[in-house]
C-alpha cells in the first residue's frame, strides 16, 4: 500500500514511516494537515495515518477535506492519538475518520490495523468493480430494451389496432411487454386478431413474441386462413427460439360477410363468447400445445367455428389479468372479470364500439380497485371484440354496389372484345393434386397486390376470385350441394364432406386467367375461371338473380355478391366457365 504518514514531530514521523516501510509499504510524508491535503492530492495514497493535533491545520480538519475530495472512493484515515485528545478524536471519527491508534504506537497493533484496513480496502475495491460492472450491465440492458421497444412498436403496428370492431388493453409488468396484440383484415374484410403471451416477462418474453408478427400480417393481407397462418407462425417460432421457449397464442377470425367466427386457442385462458346481454354462451378453452414446442404438422390447427345469427362479444385475455394478485394474495379471477363486463351495461345495448370501450374501461377500473396500489406481476392484456353488429362502420362489400354507376363505363359495349388491348395476363392452371395443398387465391393475391391499378381494390378482387374459385371447386369438381348449408349443423357437415371429397378427388382441373385490359382509356379487369366439371343450368338457376338484390338464403349469395361488385358476369357454355368484367377505381372515382 501507499501510505501517507502525517505528524508534526519529526521523530515520530520518522519512526512510523520506517516501520511502515519495514512492513513492505511505501511511506509518503507530510508535517501538518495543510501539507497532508496537498500531498494527498498529488500522490493519491491508499491510506492516511495522521496525528490529531498539529500546527497550521489539525488532523480532523484535513480528514474532512480529504474525505470530501475523495468522493465515492474510500480513503481510510487512521488517527494516531495521544492522551487527552479523546474529544477531538471522537469528533473526527464522527465526521468520517475510520480508525485510531494510541500513542506511544505499539507496532504489533499498528501492523494488525494496517492488515485490517488492507482487507477492507480490497473488499471495497471488489464492490466498486462489481457495481461498475453492474452499472454497465444496467445501461446496456436499458439500451437493448429501448431498441426492442422501438422494434416492437414498428412490428406491432399500432395503427391497425384502431379498428371499430374491437377494443383492447395492454399493460406491461415491466418496461417491455411479453403479451402481444395484433390485428389485421384479410382482403375479404375478415378481421384477424392475435393475442399472444411469451414465456416470462420483460425483454426475453418480448423477443419470444416478435417472430409471430411478420407471418400474421403478411399472410392475413393475402387472405390466408388462420390455419395456414398458425402453421407458419409455429414453424417460425420453432426455427428462431431455443428449446424451452414457447408462445401461448389465441387467433381469432371474425367474418361478418360469412357470419362466422373462428377461434384457435393454444395455452391461453378460455376465451369467453358473450351474447348481447353479456351472458356467457360459449367458452373456447385451450386444446393445443403452445407454439414452438412440436412441429406444425403434429398440431391440430383447425379452429373452433361459430356460426352466429345474433350479435355478441368475444372476450380474450392473458393469464396476467385473471391471476393478478392483491396484497392479501387473492387473485382477480374470471368471475370478477365477467361480473365487471355485465355491470358495465345493464340495458342490453347492441355491441357498439362505445360499448366495447366502456367494457375495457370498467375492467381497468375494477382491476385497479382490486389491486389497491399493488403492481400486477405479469403482463395484462384484454381484447373485447364484437360480431354480428350491423350499425358499425365495418367496410362490408355490399357498400360498393352503386360504385359502377360512378364510373365512365356503364356496361360492356359490343365492340369491347375488338377494341380492348391486353396490357398483362396472369394465368394459372392446377390439377386435383395441387388443389389439395395449394392455397390458390392467397397465392394469386400476392400478384394482384403488386399491380398498381388493383392495389386499392384488393378486397373486391379477393372476394370475386374466392367466390368463383370456391364455386368451381365445390360445385364444379366436388359436386357439393349448397342447400346442405341451410340444415342445422349443415355448415360443419358441408365442410367435412368437402374435405373428404377433395382428399378422394381422382382428377380435375381449374384454370384461372386474369387479364389487365384497356378500353378507350378505361382499365378493365377480366377474370375467367373454368373447371373440368359438367357445369350447371346457369340460365335457369340465376335468372331470378339477374334483376339484382341479394338473396336471403345461405347459398346463391356469393354469385350475387360478384354481380354487385362487377360490371358483368357471364357464364359460358355448360356453365363450367365464367367470365367477370371488373372496373378498378379510376383516379376520379377514388376521390369520393
Amino acid at each position, binding site marked *: 500500500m501507499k501510505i501517507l504518514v502525517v505528524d508534526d514531530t519529526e521523530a515520530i514521523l520518522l519512526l512510523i514511516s520506517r516501520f511502515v516501510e519495514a512492513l513492505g509499504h511505501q511511506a509518503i510524508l507530510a508535517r501538518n494537515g495543510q501539507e497532508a491535503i496537498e500531498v494527498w492530492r498529488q500522490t493519491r495514497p491508499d491510506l492516511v495515518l495522521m496525528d490529531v493535533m498539529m500546527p497550521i491545520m489539525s488532523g480532523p480538519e484535513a480528514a474532512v477535506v480529504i474525505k470530501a475530495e475523495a468522493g465515492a472512493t474510500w480513503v481510510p484515515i487512521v488517527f494516531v492519538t495521544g492522551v487527552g485528545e479523546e474529544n477531538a478524536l471522537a469528533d473526527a471519527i464522527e465526521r468520517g475518520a475510520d480508525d485510531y491508534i494510541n500513542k506511544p504506537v505499539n507496532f504489533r497493533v499498528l501492523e494488525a490495523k494496517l492488515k485490517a484496513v488492507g482487507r477492507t480496502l480490497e473488499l471495497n475495491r471488489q464492490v466498486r468493480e462489481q457495481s461498475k460492472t453492474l452499472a454497465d450491465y444496467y445501461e446496456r440492458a436499458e439500451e437493448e430494451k429501448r431498441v426492442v421497444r422501438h422494434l416492437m412498436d414498428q412490428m406491432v403496428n399500432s395503427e391497425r389496432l384502431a379498428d371499430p370492431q374491437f377494443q383492447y388493453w395492454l399493460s406491461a409488468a415491466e418496461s417491455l411487454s411479453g403479451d402481444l396484440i395484433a390485428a389485421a383484415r384479410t382482403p375479404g374484410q375478415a378481421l384477424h386478431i392475435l393475442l399472444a*403471451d411469451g414465456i416470462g416477462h420483460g425483454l426475453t418474453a418480448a423477443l419470444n413474441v416478435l417472430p409471430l408478427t411478420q407471418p400474421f400480417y403478411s399472410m392475413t393481407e393475402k387472405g390466408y386462413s388462420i390455419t395456414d397462418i398458425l402453421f407458419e407462425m409455429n414453424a417460425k417460432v420453432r426455427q428462431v427460439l431455443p428449446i424451452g421457449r414457447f408462445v401461448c397464442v389465441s387467433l381469432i377470425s371474425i367474418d361478418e360477410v360469412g357470419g362466422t367466427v373462428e377461434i384457435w386457442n393454444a395455452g391461453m385462458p378460455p376465451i369467453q363468447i358473450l351474447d348481447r346481454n353479456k351472458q356467457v354462451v360459449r367458452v373456447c378453452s385451450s386444446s393445443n*400445445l403452445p407454439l414452438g414446442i412440436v412441429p406444425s404438422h403434429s398440431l391440430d390447427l383447425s379452429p373452433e367455428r361459430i356460426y352466429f345469427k345474433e350479435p355478441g362479444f368475444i372476450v380474450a385475455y392473458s393469464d396476467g389479468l385473471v391471476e393478478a394478485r392483491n396484497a392479501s394474495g387473492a387473485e382477480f379471477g374470471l368471475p370478477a372479470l365477467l361480473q365487471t363486463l355485465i355491470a358495465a351495461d345493464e340495458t342490453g345495448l347492441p355491441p357498439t364500439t362505445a360499448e366495447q370501450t366502456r367494457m375495457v374501461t370498467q375492467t381497468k377500473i375494477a382491476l385497479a380497485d382490486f389491486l389497491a396500489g399493488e403492481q400486477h406481476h405479469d403482463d395484462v392484456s384484454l381484447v373485447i371484440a364484437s360480431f354480428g353488429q350491423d350499425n358499425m362502420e365495418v367496410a362490408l362489400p355490399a357498400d360498393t354496389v352503386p360504385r359502377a354507376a360512378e364510373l365512365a363505363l356503364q356496361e360492356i359495349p359490343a365492340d369491347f372484345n375488338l377494341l380492348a388491348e391486353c396490357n398483362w395476363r396472369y394465368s394459372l392452371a392446377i390439377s386435383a393434386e395441387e388443389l389439395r395443398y395449394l392455397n390458390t387465391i392467397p397465392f394469386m393475391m400476392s400478384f394482384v397486390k403488386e399491380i398498381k391499378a388493383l392495389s386499392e381494390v384488393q378486397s373486391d378482387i379477393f372476394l370475386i376470385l374466392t367466390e368463383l374459385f370456391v364455386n368451381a371447386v365445390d360445385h364444379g369438381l366436388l359436386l357439393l350441394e349448397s342447400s346442405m348449408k341451410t340444415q342445422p349443423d349443415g355448415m360443419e357437415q358441408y365442410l367435412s364432406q368437402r374435405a373428404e371429397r377433395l382428399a378422394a378427388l381422382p382428377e380435375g382441373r381449374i384454370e384461372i386467367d386474369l387479364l389487365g385490359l384497356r378500353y378507350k382509356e378505361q382499365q378493365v379487369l377480366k377474370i375467367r375461371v373454368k373447371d373440368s366439371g359438367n357445369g350447371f343450368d346457369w340460365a335457369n338457376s340465376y335468372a331470378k338473380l339477374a334483376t339484382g338484390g341479394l338473396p336471403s338464403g345461405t347459398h346463391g349469395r356469393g354469385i350475387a355478391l360478384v354481380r354487385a361488385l362487377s360490371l358483368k358476369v357471364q357464364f359460358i357454355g355448360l356453365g363450367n366457365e365464367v367470365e367477370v368484367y371488373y372496373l378498378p377505381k379510376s383516379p376520379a372515382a377514388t376521390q369520393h
Partner: protein
Amino acid sequence: MTPTVQIEGNVGRVILSGQFDFSAHREFRQVCESIIANPDIKEVLVDFQNVNYLDSSALGMLLLLKEKIAAASKTLALVNCRDTVKQVLEIACFGKIFTIR
C-alpha cells in the same frame, strides 16, 4: 424454493416446493443435471406435491428437462400435480407431450 432429491433404486424423484417459477431456475437446473449425470437412474419423477404455483417459465424449464432426459435415454414423468399446477398444465395441454400421473 430448494428442490430435494430422493433416489430409490433406479428412480430419481425431484421434489419441488412452494412457487415454481424463474427464481427456481438455477437450483432446478443443478438438481436435474446431477440426476441426469447419475447412470443408475433410469426414470426421473418431478414431484409437484408441495408446489402451489407454477408459471410459464417453469413450463419452459420442464421442456428443457424433457429434452435433456430424452438425450440421456431416461424416462420422465410429472407426478402429484394438483389444483393450480394441474390447471396450468392443462391449459398448456402439456398432457400431450408429458407423462402426467
